[in-house]
């Protein structure tokens, strides 16, 4: 809340800076704006930037560093007996001090020492907050003063302002790269810690997955085994079922829409596909668990088949429905991109429409469609909510779609929802799975995008 007030104060100060700068610039040429190098507004912006930018940068740095520094100071102020605690016990103690200072429930008896530490902590936080406010506001005011001093008729205000804007544009455009780097490093870092506990060969080729590690060394039956093959198999099974639904339906729908449909029919059906694409995955998951899975189970019982109520079939079919619009819109684009002259040539030779499509249009569009299908596969592999809600939890190495299987994403969610300790193989395994997921989808995406792009260039 204080931060919000502080930021709005900074914004108001910048606004004041804008008007001060503007009027000073106009005054410096005694009202003849044409003698200024830039439009008066640029002088205002110049001062406003001087006011806002340094203060905001300092504020950001402060916010990200303050907790760390305060913690260091707090640890330094603790008695020697507490400082020598192992790091996890120390973290618990610090947590208790923080909770006590914040008026929350504390997990241990409150002794005077703890109370002192909490007071000290609260004090430091308060001093920190006030110092932050004072420093930021002082910087803002100093910025205005400094900017004002620089204003002169021949100050190249526009160029300077534009340089700052340009810097902002460049920095923004690197966010995409930073995100990728962040993903790669966060996954890699935790995965390496995991591979120190479990060898990669066991993870990649082991046939047994039961991530429950023992709490005590002498506990029976939960040594934890991290062979991810059943998860990969389950993911592939469900994705395969999804593709069996999505590819034919999506492709035929796209062909009909692109080649046959009356514009009015197109206008009526397109929204249906768009709505299917816009339905959140959690809704599909609920639909799968509430309607589709029981339906398959009951009809299986009717036919004398034993279908699990968390069968791969139900999750796969619903996931396929989710992916239909994805396949159809990509294929639609690609089919309409096939040049009309090819169709006309084929029709001129006497082929019917379907023959034209089968022998001319589809072969021409095939690379693009393959690319689209690859993108769809990567969507299916990474899809989470449907499988979390409709597929099973137990790792089951089977190719039978009527049984329950589990997937990589389901395991990531189950391993990470709830309390986590970042030194157990169980939690770290989720990051290793995430790394595999990221690598596989990345490869699929790169190949698919290449294929689609090549195809587009062919006819452009």
């Amino acid at each position, binding site marked *: 809340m204080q931060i*919000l007030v502080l930021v709005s104060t900074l914004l108001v100060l910048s606004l004041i800076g804008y008007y001060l700068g503007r009027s000073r610039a106009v005054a410096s040429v005694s009202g003849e704006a044409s003698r200024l190098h830039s439009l008066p507004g640029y002088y205002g912006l110049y001062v406003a930037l001087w006011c806002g930018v340094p203060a905001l940068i300092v504020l950001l740095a402060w916010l*990200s560093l303050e*907790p*760390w520094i305060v913690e260091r100071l707090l640890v330094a102020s603790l008695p020697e007996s507490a400082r020598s605690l192992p790091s996890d016990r120390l973290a618990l103690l610090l947590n208790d001090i923080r909770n006590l200072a914040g008026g929350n429930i504390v997990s241990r008896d409150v002794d005077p020492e703890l109370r002192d530490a909490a007071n000290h902590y609260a004090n430091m936080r308060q001093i920190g907050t006030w110092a932050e406010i004072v420093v930021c506001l002082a910087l803002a005011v100093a910025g205005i003063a400094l900017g004002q001093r620089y204003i002169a008729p021949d100050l190249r205000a526009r160029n300077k302002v534009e340089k700052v*804007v340009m810097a902002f544009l*460049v920095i*923004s*455009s690197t*966010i*995409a*790269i930073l*995100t*990728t780097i*962040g993903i790669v490093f*966060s*996954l890699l870092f935790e995965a390496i810690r995991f591979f120190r506990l479990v060898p990669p060969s066991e993870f990649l080729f082991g046939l047994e997955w039961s991530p429950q590690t023992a709490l005590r060394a002498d506990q029976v039956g939960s040594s934890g085994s991290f062979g991810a093959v059943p998860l990969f198999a389950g993911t592939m099974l469900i994705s395969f079922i999804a593709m069996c639904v999505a590819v*034919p*339906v999506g*492709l*035929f*729908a796209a*062909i*009909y829409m692109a080649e*046959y449909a009356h514009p009015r029919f197109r206008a009526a*059906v397109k929204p*249906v596909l*768009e709505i299917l694409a*816009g*339905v959140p*995955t*959690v*809704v*599909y998951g*609920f*639909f799968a668990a*509430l*309607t589709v899975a029981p339906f398959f189970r009951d009809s299986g019982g009717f036919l004398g088949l034993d279908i699990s109520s968390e069968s791969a079939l139900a999750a796969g079919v619903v996931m396929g*429905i989710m992916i239909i*619009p994805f396949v*159809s819109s990509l294929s639609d684009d690609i089919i309409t991109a096939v040049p009309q002259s090819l169709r006309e040539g084929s029709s001129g030779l006497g082929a*019917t*429409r*379907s*023959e034209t499509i089968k022998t001319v249009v589809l072969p021409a569009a095939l690379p693009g469609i393959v690319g689209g299908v690859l993108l769809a596969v990567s969507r299916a592999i*990474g899809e*989470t909510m449907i499988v*979390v*809600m409709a597929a099973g939890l137990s790792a089951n190495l089977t190719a039978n779609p009527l049984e329950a299987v589990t997937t990589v*994403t389901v395991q*990531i*969610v189950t391993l*990470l929802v709830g309390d986590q300790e*970042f030194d157990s193989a169980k939690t770290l395994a989720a*990051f290793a799975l*995430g790394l595999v997921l*990221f690598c596989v*989808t*990345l490869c699929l*995406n790169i190949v698919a*995008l290449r294929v689609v792009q090549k195809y587009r260039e062919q006819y452009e």
Partner: protein
Amino acid sequence: MSDTAGTGTVKTGLPRKNINEVVSAGIRRRYAAERRFRAYGLAAIGFAIFALTTLLVTIVGTGYSAFTQTMLELEITLYPQDIDPEGNRDPKVLSTANYQALVRQSLRDLFPEVTTRQERRRLNGLVSDGATFQVRRAVLDDPSIIGQRISILVPMSDDIDQFMKGHISAEVPESDRRVSDQEIAWLERLQDRNLVHRTFNWTFFTSGDSREPELAGIWGALVGSLLTMSVTLALAFPLAVATAIYLEEFAPKNRWTDLIEVNINNLAAVPSIVFGLLGLAVFLNFFGLPRSAPLVGGMVLALMTLPTIIIAARASIKAVPPWIREAALGLGASRMQVVFQHTLPLAMPGILTGTIIGMAQALGETAPLLMIGMIAFIVDIPQGVTDPATVLPVQVFLWSDAPERAFVERTSAAIMVLLSFLIVMNAFAIYLRKRFERRW
């Protein structure tokens, strides 16, 4: 036609009649294939429509009944000696008084013949625990009613509610049913005295989550969604527009910009759960931001929607014809002025459309938020972006896991609310596109 067929006869030596038959049979076959092919296409579209209708019908069919709630009209005597023995109307005393006993007493007054402990407990179970809070709120709002006999509508328990809505059938043998025969008999007597009403379920829209289905609402999740979306919008929109401007208007064509482009395209296709892992490892563990907070959720979703908005914004900026830029440059504008005073305003409708679609995507996203702990059970309405909160799709996920029958209809109802938000957002995006679309 017959002439060509005739020459054909001569050349191939086949009888004249035959070739006609062969050709027309071939044409028949080919036309049948044509019709089949069309039918496949129509069947595919039919399947998609069927899937969508089944989905919507299921959701609405199970969800519509959650918008009403069975209420019991209770006459409660607010004895001053129970609520406020000292008579000074101290709010602290008022809020700690035993209202539960009053509610139970009033139920017992309705059925004086109920005496055994077990039966009494069952009788008390007819109304929700929320009744107590409701009476307390009524007293705190207006202490002058103490000493009077008030008539108040209190929610009935979820099982009774489900029975009244017909979701629990009386045909089922008693042992398999959540409502006993005796409770049904009580309920019938209450109905005869016209004390049972079905009213609009305001609780559903005004309260936070609860373990009791009849007290659970989506307001907390809605506020959480709103806070999260504000953070997402505040971060994603400026960054995405800036990136799009840079890439379209200023970026030199070199390896660096190629790399940026490849990255953006790939990020658009990275599974959302990976963004959740990023949020967990970087925002929570590295920067130590609070768990379950809309701030972190918004940041993760912003990273996720950035590519969508960037791609839409780039397409929209690209669509502005070059002669606009040339004309402005010719009049002496700087490149930055061209962008901010001409290109950007013209591209804005397209950018906004893309932004709304990206936000709609973010609003429905669940998986990454599970990773950063927005799945906690939170009763309070969040007050700021650092308070623990949950969002609408996660609320759907949480409720879908609950065993009570009453939560099924609430899940569906929450989905209906979520879907209507998405439809409104998408409709607005389409309107923007239609209204401001320009063809140059």
